[in-house]
């Protein structure tokens, strides 16, 4: 088989989903081995696809395999198929690798949980949908799988549905992303109306030929981007992601850090030629990315829940990716997407290991001093933290550094300053997270005493991901890429057709600046939190109570939305409900019934029961008809 059969990657987990969903309850161990086997086969098949793709003559040409799906009339011919190009390959690598690690990790983490089989079933469905999403060759298929991953996210956030907060979070995630999805659908339909096709490449071709007006194109692209913002939790849609941490931690690692939330980045990268043609679209992407990176940087500063800190950092890093896209460099965005997926999955699984070991304790105020107790988790978490903080030679450094370079080339210093500020904060809260969890002395002796290092089934994936968090950044170098069989570094692998490969070159000044940002945040956090002390941070909070409250309450976004729902939404609903009750129901439905009843009450007296009356009526009727007939005929 070759790259044309890449659909098998998604088909296998989809099949296993059906088996698990129907029979998982009856299988020994809930069929978790089937899940791991399915993902493992997708993971292995990915290498088959990769080798075939790299061997394809006409280097790096996309591989297309499509079938007719439905045909209506002469002009409407709907095709469905797969489209494998370098972006898809990178997404394949990320999704299959992280999914495999998360599946293995879950065997340990989810042990003894209720609905164990169902967890693995939905995980398979998610992987299948996500793989389908990244290889779909047309927007309709993208939309279908887009919604499918959304459903999986909903199901897994609400996995512990006995907890009210979990069902609320699932609902919030679903509704918030749905607002964006409506935009996506409108955008897709607008593009279809203008070009007459759903096929992504044909749309891009059509647009590049200048077949679509500027304003119309901008509107369509903005609507599509709305969907991307919802899915990738960009401000102002970011509110659902921190709440999504109610789901089991492996789910947070897979769906809400490494794969599903980057779907927005993926789709924007895929459609970037449209953004480039539409005036101002790239600036819009940049501003959204910068705003998100900055605001969520602030929000993460004052969180005490491990997973919430990581969630805000995820949103912020997604902002970094959008900044790279806004600078017109999908390769850089995809590079950061990949390194981020590895180290953020590592961090989430590490936090999962901590939570599992401390019997579901995820408040930093009760942790501390865990490194000695959990050496493997602690060490891998340390590596992940440094990667997130962006210190060399870890993966996060290379990709973040490159974002700064392209951002400076495209938009100049003002954007770089904002992003640098966000990067410093990232390093700060990551260090704070690490110190408060793993360093110092335990703050809750009881929790600390009962903590043990997790088993190999959990630490194994941690170590593998830590390895990737160290080395995955090196693929940017020409030599490393060549050695792996690629045409060069990752930025020479992924590029927009008419741009040509963008060769990476190491710039010492930028690297130094990047290291300085990471080190600043790291040292500041160290100064503030080292040695189990919160004295300095408390002083700072008391010195600036207004600012602290603002950050602590996450800029009051949730309160604002709640007020919007309470006032605007409920007020509108009240009007609608009044209209429904008094106009539709009382006047329309009941009204027509009353008119019928009243007229029946009057007209019933015509039914005298006397035969002569009826006979007379018939006779008069016949005569009347005869007269009418005569008159009409003249």
């Amino acid at each position, binding site marked *: 088989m070759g790259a044309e059969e890449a659909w098998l990657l998604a088909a296998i987990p989809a099949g296993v989903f059906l088996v698990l969903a129907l029979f998982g309850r009856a299988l020994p161990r809930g069929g978790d081995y089937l899940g791991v086997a399915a993902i493992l086969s997708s993971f292995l098949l990915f290498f088959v696809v990769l080798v075939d793709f790299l061997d394809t003559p006409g280097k790096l040409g996309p591989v297309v395999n499509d079938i007719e799906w439905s045909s209506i009339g002469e002009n409407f011919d709907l095709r469905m198929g797969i489209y494998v190009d370098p972006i898809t390959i990178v997404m394949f690598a990320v999704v299959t690798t992280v999914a495999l690690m998360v599946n293995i990790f879950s065997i340990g983490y989810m042990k003894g949980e209720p609905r164990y089989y169902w967890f693995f079933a939905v995980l398979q469905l998610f992987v299948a949908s996500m793989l389908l999403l990244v290889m779909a060759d047309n927007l309709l298929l993208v939309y279908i799988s887009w919604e499918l991953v959304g459903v999986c996210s909903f199901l897994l956030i609400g996995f512990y549905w006995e907890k009210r907060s979990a069902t609320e979070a699932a609902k919030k995630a679903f509704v918030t992303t749905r607002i964006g999805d409506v935009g996506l659908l409108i955008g897709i339909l607008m593009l279809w109306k203008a070009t007459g096709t759903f096929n992504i490449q044909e749309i891009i071709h059509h647009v590049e030929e200048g077949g679509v007006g500027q304003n119309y194109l901008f509107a369509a692209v903005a609507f599509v981007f709305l969907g991307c913002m919802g899915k990738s939790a960009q401000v102002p849609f970011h509110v659902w992601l921190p709440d999504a941490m109610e789901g089991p931690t492996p789910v947070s690692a897979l769906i809400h850090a490494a794969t599903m939330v980057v779907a927005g980045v993926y789709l924007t990268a895929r459609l970037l030629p449209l953004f480039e043609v539409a005036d101002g679209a790239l600036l819009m992407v940049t501003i959204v990315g910068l705003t998100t990176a900055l605001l969520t940087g602030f929000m993460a500063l004052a969180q005490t829940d491990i997973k919430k800190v990581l969630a805000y950092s995820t949103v912020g890093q997604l902002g970094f990716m959008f900044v790279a896209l806004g600078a017109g460099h999908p390769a850089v965005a995809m590079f950061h997407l990949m390194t981020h997926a590895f180290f953020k999955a590592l961090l989430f699984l590490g936090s999962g290991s901590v939570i599992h070991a401390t019997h579901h304790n995820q408040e930093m105020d009760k942790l501390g001093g865990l490194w000695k107790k959990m050496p493997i988790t602690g060490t891998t978490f340390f590596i992940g933290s440094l990667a997130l903080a962006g210190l060399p030679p870890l993966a996060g450094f290379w990709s973040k550094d490159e974002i700064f370079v392209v951002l400076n080339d495209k938009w100049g210093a003002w954007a770089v300053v904002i992003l640098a500020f966000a990067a410093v904060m990232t390093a700060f809260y990551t260090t704070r997270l690490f110190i408060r969890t793993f360093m110092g002395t335990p703050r809750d002796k009881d929790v600390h005493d009962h903590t043990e290092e997790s088993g190999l089934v959990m630490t194994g994936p941690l170590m593998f991901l830590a390895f990737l968090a160290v080395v995955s950044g090196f693929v940017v170098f020409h030599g490393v890429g060549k050695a792996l069989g690629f045409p060069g570094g990752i930025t020479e692998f992924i590029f927009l057709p008419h741009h040509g490969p963008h060769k990476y070159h190491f710039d010492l000044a930028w690297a130094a600046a990047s290291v300085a940002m990471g080190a600043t945040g790291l040292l500041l956090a160290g100064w503030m939190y080292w040695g189990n002390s919160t004295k300095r941070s408390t002083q700072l909070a008391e010195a600036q109570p207004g600012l602290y409250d603002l950050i602590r309450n996450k800029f009051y976004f949730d309160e604002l939305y709640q007020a919007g729902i309470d006032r605007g939404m409920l007020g509108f609903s009240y009007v609608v409900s009044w209209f429904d009750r008094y106009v539709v129901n009382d006047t329309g439905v009941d009204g027509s019934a009353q008119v019928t009843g009243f007229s029946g009450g009057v007209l019933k007296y015509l*039914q*005298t*029961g*006397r*035969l*002569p009356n009826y*006979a007379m009526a018939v006779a008069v009727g016949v005569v009347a008809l005869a007269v009418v007939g005569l008159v009409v005929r003249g």
Partner: protein
Amino acid sequence: MVPLENYLVLSAVMFSLGVYGVLARRNAVLILMSVELMLNAVSLNFVAFAAYLDPDKVLGAIFAVFIITVAAAEVGLALAIVIRLFRNRATSNVDEAASMKW
């Protein structure tokens, strides 16, 4: 040969008498007889037109035979109803049987 108009006039007179009987009489049996009168008027029309338009074909006559057959069945049914009415109410006056109303 008797002209067509004579038949038509006779038929119209018979029909009108029948209508008058149905509307004016209260006795169920008499009403039935009036209905028969109307039916026969119609039959007469058919036969007269058949003979007038195309003497070789007997289409109108066939209709008359059908009407007689149907009328016989109808009278059988109607008389059965009249008998039931008489058994229940001891009368054949249709004004007495006026309970099927609002």
